[in-house]
């Protein structure tokens, strides 16, 4: 039976004599108000800076202030007109996919071997690597990294950046992938081997397909890391036509003179959307994972 709305609220029996109903209601109400105000403040704090990113790109004459846009899509055309903008996005893609390829290939081979073969000192090695990757950050190692890449002649090349970034994320990647591979039942490989498959065939046709969720997670995670990375390409790439979007973005607003806000706003949005999209995709599909060094 649906209860009528005018029946009084019956307090639940409790071990401790409750304060009078009136006081309780007032307190409840005040807590509620406080809660709403606090959440409102949090919302404003996080939304306020972001409003510019969703209004300015569509404003025919954007300023630094947030305001209702004078709707247009023409700002996005300025990206194509800029000498470096499209190239920078392509460079970001090259660095992201390049690092992803290196890390996936080397990481999955290493993770598989470490998962299946009892190499002496395996666990110690894994933890040492993980510890190292959280200590030797891009910031703390910028001077020797710069010097190393200069000496081996990879300064101002994408390969140099890809190698440095790969070295930084590989320990985490191996750790994550080993976790995934450990959870794959060994009986699959056993059966394949009984059927006469070589280790490489097993890796390609049995392990890789079963570990696909892990590989996909690592792939997206790596691209997200590289896409937003500023310091490493900023240090190692000097020529503007080599620089990825993260660095070009910075150049846009630090170059002398008034920044071109139509270009800047449209470029910011185009540059941010892929990474936001990928991140929420991963978050939705795999949930949030704590594997240390999620963002460095």
């Amino acid at each position, binding site marked *: 039976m649906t209860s009528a709305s005018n029946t009084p609220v019956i307090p639940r029996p409790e071990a401790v004599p409750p304060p009078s109903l009136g006081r309780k209601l007032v307190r409840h109400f005040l807590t509620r108000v406080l809660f709403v105000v606090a959440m409102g403040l949090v919302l404003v704090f996080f939304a306020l800076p972001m409003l510019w990113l969703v209004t300015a790109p569509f404003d025919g004459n954007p300023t630094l202030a947030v305001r209702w846009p004078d709707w247009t899509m023409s700002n996005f055309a300025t990206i194509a007109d800029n000498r470096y903008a499209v190239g920078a996005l392509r460079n970001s893609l090259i660095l992201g996919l390049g690092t992803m390829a290196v890390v996936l290939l080397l990481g999955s081979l290493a993770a598989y071997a470490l998962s299946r073969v009892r190499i002496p000192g395996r666990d110690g090695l894994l933890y040492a690597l993980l510890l190292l990757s959280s200590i030797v950050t891009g910031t703390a190692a910028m001077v020797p990294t710069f010097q190393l890449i200069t000496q081996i002649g990879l300064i101002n090349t994408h390969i140099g950046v890809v190698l440095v970034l790969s070295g930084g994320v590989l320990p985490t990647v191996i750790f994550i992938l080993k976790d995934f591979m450990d959870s794959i039942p060994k009986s699959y490989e056993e*059966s394949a081997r009984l059927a006469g498959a070589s280790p490489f065939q097993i890796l390609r046709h049995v392990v890789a397909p079963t570990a696909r969720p892990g590989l996909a997670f690592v792939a997206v995670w790596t691209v997200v890391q590289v896409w937003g990375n500023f310091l490493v390409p900023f240090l190692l790439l000097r020529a503007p036509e080599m620089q990825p979007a993260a660095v070009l973005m910075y150049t846009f607003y630090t170059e002398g003179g008034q920044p071109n806000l139509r270009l800047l706003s449209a470029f910011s949005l185009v540059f941010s959307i892929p990474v936001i999209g990928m991140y929420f995709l991963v978050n939705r599909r795999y949930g949030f994972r704590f594997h240390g060094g999620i963002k460095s």
Partner: protein
Amino acid sequence: MLSADPPRGVRRPRKRTDDVAGLGHARAGLFVAPALAIVGLFLVFPAVWTLYLGMTNYRLTGLAAAEPEFVGIDNFTQALGDDAFWSSLGLTLVFVLLSGVIGQTLLGFSVAWALRHVTGWVKTLIETLVLAAWVIPASVASFLWLALLDRRNGTLNELLGTDGMAWLIEYPMASIIVFNIWVGTAFSMLLFSSALAAVPPSQMESARMVGATSWQQLRDVVVPNIKGHILTNTLLITLWTFNTFTPYLLTAGGPRGESEILAVYIYRTAIPGGQLGMGAAISLIMLVINLVIALGYLRVARGTGTKS
């Protein structure tokens, strides 16, 4: 057809039951080697090399670039005797404490705590915004804040009616601290909301039954339950905040070095300043601090026996 799970009797006794694909040690080594080579060359080697570079007078240009000399611990004594270094270290400490340990952790926990029973669009909206701030590329996030804090057209001045206030020049440290809280709160929020979800409801219920206030529940039930998470959070946040370079994009260490945290100090010394040897010496100090933080974490984590 492959059988998924052969009966036990069929399995022959084998020396290495783990190695089901028949890799063997040699091939396993080959599989691991390329990854280790990359990590060794581009992660381990630079760290070790810092030790040597820090003892030279390497410069980016000029004579000392071509033929650097070994100067021993000169760089270290010079750095440790330099007021700029100590002021930078002090600023870094304030930055890590206020923006990381206190700001991100408290805000992240509060949001997770406040939203623990909330469902629906409010939760989704707040979580999405906090996460977006974390995910947006640093150089975009920095510009968003430059726009927000702009002297003439900034939205903040418009809202507060403080026209002409140059936040980044008047309050550079406060600006980068608030900025870093904005960027990094997501991690603490996500960590704590998954930690809070794992607190046994029965314990919360019993606490409520005996009339514990929210504060008492928090102190006596929640905190003991999520101790491991608090530890993980604090140490990772400390490490990340200590190593972040993003404030450079906002203030470039200025004005007059007032927001020059250690990361920025190293960059300005080594790259635009050209003193690579000196920069390496300070890098080494930074690496040692990182090591101390990480080892301290490992020790405490092992001591309490909590899962990291």
